[in-house]
């Protein structure tokens, strides 16, 4: 990391908080309330306190959906926004490497996303039930990283990255559910799509047992990492204008 880019970190953190962090936190609170509040009210009405098992199941329901939504919001427009809006003209007339700039932005957004999830988990612990924070936080991190490389690649290629990313997510879910277990060429095609279907197993292991099956983890993160490198190559070779 060059000195000027390192010092620019503080501005990227500020951008994250203002443009994405607060929005994700609010969405997380509202989303959590809409799912958790009725369950809590039901538990209160029946005068039976929420069991640990029930709290964990509730957390899994919220976490699975919210981590995807939050990752989608945080990663949307990571590169493409600057291209669409023309902000790149000011940024990249300065002595800055495009791949380094966006790699740093990716890192800042990842850490910011984790901080938001840590805050949301703290709210869960205070208002719902005490849970071990490591498993849920690790799962949120895995969702972000699994989606991150693909989103980074798409954002470096397309101006309307959220449409493409949404299409890839929906396509992979559909293909996985239809051809996931199919033999032959259909099975091969299904495996070419992002392996988000494995996230269910990963979450179950992390939240309930505190462990994760290494093969699923390697497949998820490896798949994303390949696309992240692809995004860096695009940024290096393709003009941004």
């Amino acid at each position, binding site marked *: 990391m060059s000195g000027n880019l390192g010092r620019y970190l503080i501005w990227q953190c500020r951008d994250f908080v203002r443009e994405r962090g607060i929005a994700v936190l609010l969405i997380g609170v509202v989303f959590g309330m809409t799912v958790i509040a009725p369950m809590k009210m039901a538990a209160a009405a029946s005068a039976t306190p929420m069991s640990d098992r029930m709290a964990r199941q509730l957390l899994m329901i919220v976490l699975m959906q919210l981590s995807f939504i939050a990752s989608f919001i945080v990663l949307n427009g990571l590169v493409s926004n600057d291209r669409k809006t023309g902000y790149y003209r000011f940024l990249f007339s300065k002595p800055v*490497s495009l791949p380094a700039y966006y790699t740093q932005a990716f890192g800042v957004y990842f850490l910011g996303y984790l901080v938001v999830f840590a805050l949301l988990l703290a709210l869960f612990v205070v208002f719902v039930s005490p849970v071990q924070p490591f498993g849920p936080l690790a799962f949120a991190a895995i969702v972000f990283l699994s989606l991150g490389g693909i989103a980074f690649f798409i954002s470096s290629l397309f101006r309307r990255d959220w449409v493409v990313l949404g299409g890839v997510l929906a396509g992979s879910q559909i293909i996985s559910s239809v051809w996931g277990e199919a033999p032959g060429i259909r099975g091969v095609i299904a495996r070419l799509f992002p392996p988000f279907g494995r996230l269910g197993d990963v979450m179950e292991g992390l939240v309930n047992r505190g462990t994760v099956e290494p093969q699923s983890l390697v497949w998820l993160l490896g798949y994303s990492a390949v696309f992240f490198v692809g995004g860096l190559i695009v940024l290096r070779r393709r*003009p941004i204008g």
Partner: protein
Amino acid sequence: MELVYPAAASVIEFSNATKTYRSILGRSVTAVEDFSLQVAEGEVLGIAGPNGAGKSTLLSLLLGFLRPTGGSVRILGEEPREYVRKNGIGYVPELMTMNPTWRADNALTRLATLADLPPAEIPARVNAVIEQLGIGEHRDKKVKALSKGNLQRLGVAQALLREERVMVLDEPTHGLDPVWTQRFRDIVEGLRRPGRTVIIASHNLDELQRVADRVAIIDHGRLQRLVTTGYDLSADTGGTYRIAVASGAERVPVLLPSARASSDGEFEIPFTDVSELNRALGSLIVGGVLIASVVPVRSVLEQQFREAVGESR
């Protein structure tokens, strides 16, 4: 045509640079075609051309925002993107697209950080450019709250944050009022350094005439003419001058049949060379006409521009 500015070493070199945009459907538009030019150290080069002539594409090639589809562009022997990554360029874009939520002084501070100014120097440098561009009273405003002129001044200010060896200004006086347009010319004059190369693209030929050493006139993406600015009368090949007459206007058509009355007390005199102009003026003075002023109807640049663009259209 010899395109190297004779005084100093070449800093920027376009060699048969071509940029063709191709759509998915196979349609193509050539924005810059076979463009060759060398720009010297210490030179202020103007780029003039009608709308859609390829000026902004040319500057995007120079900043490495685009890559040529043919030929090459080099800054001190390096690919533009590589040069900019290592050294940076003072750049004022035509489109002032800055994040609207940034505060003006914060925008300068963060861009000064990216420009790799030493942290200790940034506040003083930011204050200096704010003062130079007269945006002190707007420094706390968000970009979205700035008027077009103030936003333009902010864009110019960020380009002046650091002592850059290469400066590229794309329509820099666009949106500025006449006072700041004049001040901007002084700023550009102040940018002249023996080791610095400045490129200014503008529609304003008068502005280019005043600030540039040479002006490249482009149209249809091609270099049409390269004009050395300034009124070099010895090299002047003629044109039209407007004379204002204080008294004796009725004698002008008699003494000078080629003179054409343009308005009350004003006449336009076509001439083919400077000596002919002087002879004409002499005959008017001897004939008792009192001349108040003599000004060229068109500058050399404007005349060349009209000829070049007319020829290519």
